[in-house]
């Protein structure tokens, strides 16, 4: 947390969790897609479902998917902007279980190239968010740092491959988490970094044996690399 989370951010109201956090969830999903979103099915859970309409949560998530920032005064008009941009949006409800944060949402996204992504995210207060799941696997990160998410088979050596690549590129790891579905099954590592990971290194990882999927969340704006 820094001073500008205490006095700040500048944002469109009315709620840091239900509006600004919702924009940020949309933003992070857009970046995880790394291409324009053409179809979005958005399922609201808990308090997002109960009070989301009055807080503009629906419009805020769509604004985020369009790349609008939390202080963009066009957020209330995002449904029209989505329609203009050719993004199909559908809303529904989801029960993500008792363990899920009250301000949670599940998104099914399709991009312009046909790429698909499923994300569960939560707005955890003060505009801060957590990406909880990507494509059904745990992925616990905040969107405050460049984040590398590697899905791989649960076998020895993958952590070393990824961390030695980061060392080679002088990227420092801020936090690192490991999860697996079962011994020898599917595993995921989530690495929040202090620097951006070069694109070519991500492509290199994608081609390693045993690596199933690599998703990268960059803090850079679209097209800036």
């Amino acid at each position, binding site marked *: *947390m*820094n*001073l*500008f989370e*205490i*006095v*700040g*951010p*500048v*944002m*469109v*109201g*009315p*709620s*840091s*969790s239900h*509006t*600004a956090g919702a924009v940020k969830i949309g933003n992070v999903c857009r970046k995880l897609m790394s291409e324009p979103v053409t179809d979005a099915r958005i399922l609201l859970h808990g*308090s997002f479902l*109960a*009070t989301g*309409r*009055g*807080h*503009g949560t629906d419009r805020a998530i769509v604004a985020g998917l369009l790349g609008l920032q939390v*202080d963009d*005064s066009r*957020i*209330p008009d995002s449904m029209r902007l989505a329609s203009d941009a050719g993004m199909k949006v559908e809303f529904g409800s989801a029960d993500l279980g008792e363990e899920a944060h*009250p301000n949670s949402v599940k998104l099914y996204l399709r991009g312009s190239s046909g790429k698909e992504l499923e994300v569960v995210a939560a707005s955890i*207060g*003060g*505009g801060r968010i957590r990406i909880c799941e990507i494509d059904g696997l745990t992925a616990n990160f905040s969107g405050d740092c460049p984040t590398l998410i590697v899905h791989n088979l649960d076998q020895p050596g993958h952590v070393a491959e990824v961390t030695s690549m980061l060392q080679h590129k002088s990227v420092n790891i801020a936090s690192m988490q490991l999860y697996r579905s079962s011994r020898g099954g599917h595993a995921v590592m989530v690495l929040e970094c202090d620097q951006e990971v070069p694109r070519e290194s991500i492509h290199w990882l994608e081609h390693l044996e045993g690596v199933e999927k690599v998703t990268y969340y960059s803090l850079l704006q679209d097209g800036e690399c």
Partner: protein
Amino acid sequence: MYGSLEEILAVSKQSGLPFWKVVQLEDCREEDITEETSFEKMREMYRAMRDTDQAYDPALQSASGLVGTDGAKVRERRLAGKLLSGDLMGLVMERALRTAESNACMKRIVAAPTAGSCGVMPAVLLTIQEHLQLGEERMTEALYTAAGIGGVIALRASLSGAEGGCQAEIGSASAMTAGAVVYLSGGSASQMTQAAALALKGLLGLACDPVAGLVEVPCVKRNVIGAVNAITSADMALAGIRSRIPPDQVIDAMKSIGHAMSPELRETGKGGLAATPEGTAILNRMKRH
């Protein structure tokens, strides 16, 4: 960020630097940014507060229809010279309503510390700036003072209504603003923390019970009480009144009160005003639409 107000006071005393500077330097170190970058960013926060105040639309109503036009009503009575609380407090009231209403109507605001409490700080600071004829640099320094106090509250307790009730939002906003006002009035660093303690004590126990779960009722009008309380607390501290309970311990008490509150009173929209017959009727009306 600092974990106690005592620590900020100690560093300030030892280094001879003002409270706001101690707060700024720590954040620059932690975030690895220059003092200039930080200062310009904070200046932008102040400008954004002023922009919201000036962009107020007196005809605007929230989507629910529960909130809007109250800032204009106070303005009318103030300009007619009829407000019992006088021109300075009247302007503070008016501005607190203006910014809080703008927030409910999906306008651009500065969360300070939260969106629900966004009217407190600008209402007081914009008015005190005019009253004492201060420059923008000094106002920016006052925001650091406020942020330093808020940072300690965030670390020791909470700034979220869902965790600590409204005392954590309006209470914190009021405490932060009270400290900033003491700074603007030339008070000592110790008086800033005393003002924060007095302001927070006045709002301890305040429940977060929004009707239909929206940041509207009673949030908008509670911004008025937070703003007015900041000024009276600053005046008390400047007059030499001290909190019998040390400021850090007042913050700790806020945390423990928040924990003791039932979840119905922590932003769930299920208790207090939200659970009154009228609050329930409003919720049911909204569900039908």
